[in-house]
């Protein structure tokens, strides 16, 4: 039954992707991209990847769409048609696709328990998580301890994106038409009473859910990334409803930048402290006399760092786009 459902979702995925490429209205394309991400998340869930599904839903369908829309507001939403060069691209792409489909026939079938992927190192993780960390979520264990160095790198990718957007959009836009824009900006969504009221009701729960994902990550799906993204979407919703200035009053830019820097440094310094206490970089076991407790402590702290950094970075990026004046 679930098999049929999976095939249905996957076919929808293909259809959506083709529709995205075919439409010339960028707004429609962005909305379809959001749907694409949701379908992807549903597929991930069917394939037993709860953590990834949560992340894809929060990041792919939520934050990405908002950033896309912010950029669209600044650039215009019509795509101009273009004819030349399409045929060759189509042929090349079709050939590559058939080559890749041909190559799939040697791959292990979906769900094959004898596939090499499931033999070598995967069972080790499942076994050692209970032994070394003593909490149920193996994904969190790998993410934050066994392969914690990758996660550190990932936090710095987010940090790079944040400073990159701030750097690139740090140049003031060419000054045209600035006066008549000011009026419009203050208007915001103020006369939308119903969304505002509902928003006020819902936003605390979104943030609460974010915190739950943050601190429950060892036990269920979730962790720093998901939490950061969810809290960020909550605050972005606030900014959409109440106007950007009010959101900035609540959480000013300097605080956001501080969160990014602080989160990244928190993660890194846990690693360095491990070094000083006689372990390797990011070897949390040395943090406490009881290695299991040390692991749990380390994971708790670095997950908090990840959450802070991701939340701060996504919000900084959002504000950098949203505060930009449209000059076209």
């Amino acid at each position: 039954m679930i098999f049929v459902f999976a095939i249905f979702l996957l076919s929808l995925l293909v259809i959506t992707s083709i529709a995205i490429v075919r439409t010339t209205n960028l707004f429609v394309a962005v909305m379809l991209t959001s749907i694409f991400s949701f379908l992807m998340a549903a597929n991930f869930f069917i394939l037993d990847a709860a953590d990834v599904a949560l992340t894809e839903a929060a990041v792919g369908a939520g934050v990405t769409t908002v950033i896309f829309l912010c950029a669209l507001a600044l650039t215009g939403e019509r795509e101009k048609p273009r004819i030349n060069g399409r045929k060759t691209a189509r042929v090349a792409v079709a050939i590559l696709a058939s080559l890749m489909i041909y190559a799939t026939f040697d791959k292990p079938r979906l769900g094959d328990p004898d596939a090499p992927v499931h033999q070598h190192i995967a069972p080790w993780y499942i076994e050692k998580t209970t032994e070394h960390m003593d909490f149920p979520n193996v994904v969190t264990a790998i993410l934050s301890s066994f392969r914690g160095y990758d996660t550190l790198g990932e936090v710095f990718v987010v940090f790079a994106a944040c400073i990159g957007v701030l750097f690139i959009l740090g140049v003031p836009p060419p000054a045209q038409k600035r006066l008549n824009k000011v009026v419009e900006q203050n208007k915001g969504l103020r006369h939308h009473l119903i969304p505002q009221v509902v928003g006020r009701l819902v936003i605390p729960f979104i943030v609460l859910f974010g915190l739950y994902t943050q601190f429950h990550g060892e036990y269920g799906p979730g962790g720093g990334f998901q939490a950061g993204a969810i809290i960020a979407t909550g605050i972005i919703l606030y900014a959409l409803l109440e106007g950007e200035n009010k959101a900035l009053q609540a959480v000013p830019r300097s605080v956001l930048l501080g969160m990014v820097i602080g989160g990244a440094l928190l993660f890194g310094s846990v690693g360095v402290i491990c070094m000083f206490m006689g372990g390797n970089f990011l070897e949390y076991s040395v943090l406490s006399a009881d290695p299991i407790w040390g692991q749990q402590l380390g994971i708790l702290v670095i997950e908090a760092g990840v959450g802070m950094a991701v939340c701060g970075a996504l919000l900084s990026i959002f504000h950098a786009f949203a505060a930009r004046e449209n000059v076209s």
Partner: protein
Amino acid sequence: MDLIAHLPALQVVIPMLSAPLMVLLQPRGLAWAGATVVALVSFAMAATLAIGVLNGLTPQYFMGGWPAPFGIALSVDAFSAVLLLIVTGASAGALLAAKPSVDQQVEEERQPLFYAAWMLAMAGLIGIVVAADAFNIFVFMEISSLASYILIAGGPDRRALPAVFKYLTMGTIGATFYLIGVGLIYMMTGTLNIEDMQNRIGDVTDINPILVAAGFITIGLALKAAVFPLHVWVPNAYTHAPHMVTVFLAACATKVSLYVLIKFDYLVFQSRLVDHDMQFALFLMPMAILGILIASAVAMFEGHLKRLLASSSIAQIGYILLCASFISTLGLSASVVHLFNHALAKGGLFLAVACLAYHYRDLRLDQLGGASTKMPWTCATVVICGLSLIGIPGTAGFISKWLLISASLQIGPWGWFLVAIILLSSLMAVAYVWRIIEALYFKAPVEGVGPQSEAPIQLLAVTMLVAALNLYFGFFPQVPLELATEAAGMLLEGAQ
């Protein structure tokens, strides 16, 4: 805490963690000073590691204390030691000289972010070089790419933006291709550790996914390394980037991708794929030769100084790949030595360009007339580094050209054909270097443009130091040669 044992990790972690701190260093000049200190410390660490490798050590480090195929391991061998020296050296050199040029090109309030991105780029490149884990390489590749997009976008010209955008799309496609390749290998072997892959890939019975993986990884990394038909992002990105960023990236960014490519080909695929050496010879060698000839020809007719040098870089990537495709000790050591020497020569040339650009706004060759009278030292360094690029005896470039020619003579009758091509392309290099020298020394100055004085002493001193190093390594090439021979031995051992 035993610092030496932690060096492979500290090498990455120190520049990476310094990046957030750079953002906080708001007052004028502090960010630059901080970045320079960090880069110098990194260089010292790289030198320590290289000395250790020369003494027969191969430092390994297990992140989080987890054993190798399960956790992430770092390892430093002779090959990565060379790359470490190049990356940290280029970064330290460029940063030492950077202040006057960057002050001119990047607004003061944006400078802390600029230097933070620089630190991230350096940390990312170092992270790739020391990583022994295929997926970890991807993560650090993304850090370094995102940071270099930021750095290039700092260019004052608006044309920098489309150039970066092109780099961003092609770079992301390259990285994603690499990710697909790694995924396929992981699917068939169940491991991500490169050494473990090497051991387990022999047991794989179904060859097709491995072939596809080899294709994806080769194409993806070739995109990032600007191997000939996939190089289109290079000229614009290098031309419109801030001058000091060009120095840094031209000296090491593409080379690190090339390093990963060579490492994967030799350590992971070579042992497994039947006739893989043939495939190498049939696919990569023609690309390399075409790249050398076409890019040199383009450089001969290019009117803009930075674009000319960027084209020449593509040709040099061709040389490195050509050496590697011989699959012999001599060829591989030529390849590694050329990585090193080209970084020196091109770094020196781009530093000299930065000196010139301090006074000339327009870097087209016909605008540069008469520079030699006002900026004699800068022009002298251009000559020295240019000679090194051509491969004149007495400069560092000669050593690698010599090794290359001897390596190609080893492979029999075809070797003579290759020697002919190498000589032809060297003649082309003479032609385009001569065009630069002609413009600087023998053209009449253009009315209204032109410097009143030399470049700032800080910039000039580093430039001359690099030129001197070009000469030094031409006479005393022992250190890079020794490292290169060891690296070649290690790579070929993996291929057996």
